[in-house]
């Protein structure tokens, strides 16, 4: 039964494999450059397993951020997961026990987009099918990040500037969201509010005020935003 589930799941995960190997390697390389070996990359990809968060975590670790600000940063960046969970309640309802716990832990953006759209073929247990999609995805991510960490140790050329990969990741996701959403108000609020907070509070302490102001402003502007969404 498992064999059929793997057979059905594997082809669906191939696009994620390419992305996770490359982005994972970028993460491992960045982490290694900041003084954390491939073992740290592997540990973080195993336990945290959230792409953009792990890139930010490199910053938090090397900058010696406090546990409180690390927790708040994680909460804001991963708040979107709350909503992935909401839309998976029905699909995962029949899955039980440890398998369900793992499915919830492994619900990244990419895995979410796969399990959201994929249907298990006739006669394949849906729990096993979702498990293999999730598990294979995490394997690619762990493998990529460990490879990146190892590569960082042996790489002979000057890697100054490779940390721009993180900026590029967020700029590209931002652009992609801009292109797919009709309503640009939330994106503009995010950019504008953070920029103003950066000027007011300085680079070391603007994140928390930004988060609070963004959440407040979005809540206050709810009716306007929803009208634009409907338009």
């Amino acid at each position: 039964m498992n064999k059929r589930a793997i057979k059905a799941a594997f082809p669906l995960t191939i696009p994620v494999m390419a992305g996770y190997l490359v982005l994972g390697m970028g993460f491992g390389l960045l982490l290694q450059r900041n003084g954390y070996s491939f073992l740290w990359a592997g540990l973080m990809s195993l336990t945290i397993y959230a792409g953009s968060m792990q890139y930010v975590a490199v910053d938090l670790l090397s900058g010696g951020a406090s546990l409180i600000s690390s927790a708040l940063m994680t909460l804001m960046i991963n708040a979107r997961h709350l909503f992935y969970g909401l839309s998976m309640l029905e699909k995962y309802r029949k899955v039980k026990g440890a398998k369900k716990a793992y499915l919830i832990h492994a619900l990244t953006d990419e895995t979410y987009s796969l399990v959201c759209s994929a249907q298990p073929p006739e006669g394949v247990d849906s729990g096993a099918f979702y498990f293999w999609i999730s598990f294979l995805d995490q394997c690619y991510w762990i493998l990529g990040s460990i490879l990146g960490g190892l590569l960082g140790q042996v790489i002979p050329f000057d890697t100054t500037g490779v940390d721009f990969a993180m900026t590029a990741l967020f700029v590209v996701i931002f652009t992609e969201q801009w292109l797919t959403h009709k309503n640009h108000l939330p994106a503009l609020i995010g950019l504008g509010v953070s920029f103003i907070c950066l000027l007011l509070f300085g680079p070391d302490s603007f994140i928390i005020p930004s988060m609070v102001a963004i959440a407040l402003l979005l809540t206050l502007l709810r009716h306007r935003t929803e009208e634009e969404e409907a338009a």
Partner: protein
Amino acid sequence: MDHNTLSSLLTVLVIALVTLLTRLLPFLVFGGRKEPPAIILYLGRVLPCAIMGMLVVYCLRSISPAAAPYGLPELMAVAAAVGLHVWKRSTLLSIAVSTVLYMVLVQAVF
């Protein structure tokens, strides 16, 4: 284990636990077929775009526009990432090209 290793481990642990919490909470709270409040659903739709904007600012927070090279390498590489992405819509290509461009700019040009 020195102090730094311990505090790094604690940071990783906290990030892992909070990440798990954000994934687990909906199943704990709404597992019993309750419809989530409209405000939660609304924030779920709009927060991701806003937070991504915040993260872009976060990444560029240390640029000093008053001193050489005036944030020019960042500006050029960001423009390349956006332009390439609008044109080709390939995430990996946009990231790879703009990162290599940035590396060349900071190593060889500025």
